[in-house]
């Protein structure tokens, strides 16, 4: 589904690389966790995959279902089925959640050559999806993320994911800043959407999310490189040992 080969990226032409050659293959049905210390490039990887204009790809390639992902506009990637749950969801004052979700949903439908849904038909879909994040309809009349708490913003990302049903969901530290209950709701949301034809990449600092969402693979990102990959037990090892010891591993990888 997703094939990343030797991906390098910086925050602009002439700047040093933040991603220094990442290769990763994600197959349908899989859940991959990407862990690593602050500043290792985890969020950069997520943003580059989604096409954030602040980053420049300096090398490598990314294929999504065989297509050149890096050649696509952010909205084309979205319509192809790539979804990014933002680490810092953006506020859109004056636009209700309901309106925003329907607009995004209808863009997908238009992309597939289907008719747009009117507000009433969309409401039926929305009511089902709201159950996933345990929200009432009142949240739909609030402006997108405007005045939301940190936890509400993250739940809103999961709701958007539930409505848009992406093929590949990339969750960028969706667990950080959540209390135990909110964490469980987010995790349940991700699990509820799991299907053999969909894949998930979880970017996270902490092992605790992985108690709720069991990954098929765990990768450790250190200084712009994937320095180790393994099963879910790797996350436990990181939890026990911290990230310090990885600097040696990283040197070995570079060598």
């Amino acid at each position: 589904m997703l094939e990343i080969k030797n991906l390098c990226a910086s925050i602009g032409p002439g700047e040093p690389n933040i991603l220094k050659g990442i290769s990763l293959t994600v197959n349908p049905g899989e859940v991959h966790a990407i862990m690593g210390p602050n500043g290792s490039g985890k969020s950069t990887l997520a943003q580059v995959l989604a096409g954030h204009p602040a980053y420049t790809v300096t090398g490598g390639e990314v294929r999504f279902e065989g297509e050149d992902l890096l050649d696509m506009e952010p909205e084309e990637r979205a319509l192809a089925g790539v979804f990014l749950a933002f680490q810092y969801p953006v506020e859109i004052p004056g636009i209700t959640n309901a309106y925003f979700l329907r607009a995004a949903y209808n863009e997908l439908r238009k992309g597939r050559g289907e008719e747009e849904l009117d507000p009433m038909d969309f409401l039926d879909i929305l009511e089902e999806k709201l159950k996933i994040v345990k929200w009432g309809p009142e949240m739909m009349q609030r402006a997108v993320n405007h005045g939301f708490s940190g936890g509400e913003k993250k739940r809103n990302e999961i709701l958007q994911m539930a409505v848009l049903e992406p093929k590949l969901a990339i969750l960028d530290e969706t667990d950080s800043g959540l209390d135990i209950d909110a964490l469980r709701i987010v995790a349940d949301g991700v699990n509820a959407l799991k299907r053999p034809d969909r894949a998930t990449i979880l970017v996270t600092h902490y092992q605790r999310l992985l108690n709720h969402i069991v990954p098929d693979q765990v990768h450790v990102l250190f200084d712009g490189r994937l320095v180790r990959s393994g099963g879910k037990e790797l996350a436990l090892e990181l939890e026990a040992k911290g990230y310090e010891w990885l600097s040696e591993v990283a040197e070995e990888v570079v060598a």
Partner: protein
Amino acid sequence: MSSSVESLVNREYKHGFVTDIESDSVPPGLNEDVIRLISEKKGEPEWLLEWRLRAYKAWLKMEEPHAWANITYPPIDYQDIVYYSAPKTVKPLGSLDELDPKLRETYDKLGIPLNEQKLLAGVAVDAIFDSVSVGTSYKEHLGELGIIFCSFSEAVREHPALVQKYLGSVVPISDNFYASLNSAVFTDGSFVYVPKGVHCPMDLSTYFRINQAGTGQFERTLIVADEGATVSYLEGCTAPARDENQLHAAVVELVALEGATIKYSTVQNWYAGDEEGVGGIYNFVTKRGKCAGARSKISWTQVETGSAITWKYPSVILQGDDSVGEFYSVAVANGRQQADTGTKMIHLGRRTRSTIISKGISAGRGNNSYRGQVKVMPKAERAWNYTQCDSMLIGNRCGAHTFPYIDVQNRSSAVEHEASTTKIGEDQIFYLKQRGLNTENAISMIVNGFCKEVFKELPMEFAVEAQKLLGVSLEGSVG
């Protein structure tokens, strides 16, 4: 903002066509003879001619307001303007069916429902073509309720006492440079009178169209709501795309007597000039309402997307006790547009209340200024004002300015002013793009959200129109 947020390619102005129709125009230039000629052509009574001439004399002593307004333009040659231009075929019409087909075609193109059969939306329309009113619809129906809705010329002929009583009572002939000019040379406009206790059952609407080259448009609108009456009035404007600048200097006067409510909504889409700033309308307009009676209310809502320069301050004089003034504004300055707009709320009566919500959007090389005055006089005990003034910047070559003037002469009053400036961020756009919206739709959504508090004040159909217009006028503002 990064390089992606630049480059201006304005979509072609949709209303930029010219109607080929013969006109009856006076030669360019302004002097007493021209004013006498205008007055004579319109068959006006002596008092109105005298009034015009007094205004003209006052105007001669005045100067263009270059000093204080945050706009720049070369001095206008007032001797080079045609002050009267009328479609030649216009004569008093027995019914709208007699309207010149070319005029009707023009209004059809603009989407104005002059044809009464089409008036399912229930909006009564007066259409001003160049300077002359070409037809008022739904007149009979309104007449049964005692509501007068007609062209200004007709009002002068049929209801001279009302016109004489209220004309200039809110905007006096020596008020300001453009208002005085208008008073001297105005050719037509709309007149509304809603009698005591009558609620006007439909929105009244005037559609303004400048067609003839080299002409100025100087219309005059006077709306009087008698005790306990209510009326909602809509105004729309377009003009052909031309290389020259054309002057539009209108005056609108509103009078609300005791317990009356007037709601005045404008969607202004005059030609804005091209992206280099060539051509476009100079929209120098004086709009003012007087809450003359207790518990009266005047509410202005404006969406200003067009014009090369907009200079207007729809204001309310809160004279009656417990009267209410409101101003809701969205002003867009894209390309090389300049807007200096805002309001004045003059609190005279006790417990008078005013609300100002201003949304300024600057894009391209546009320059947008909010200028607002809140004045609370000594006798306006417990007066209250809330002002919210938000600016949004798109790109990094545009400007947003705020000039609030607050003058409170009374200790029991409360005046609140909030201002904010935001820039459409790459992150906001990226967020929406990541959800599948393209850049234009993303911008449009962000801007519409920003303007929501104003749009919700507009009548439903107008609100939809305003949102579309905003999308079009900002098209290409982000590359």
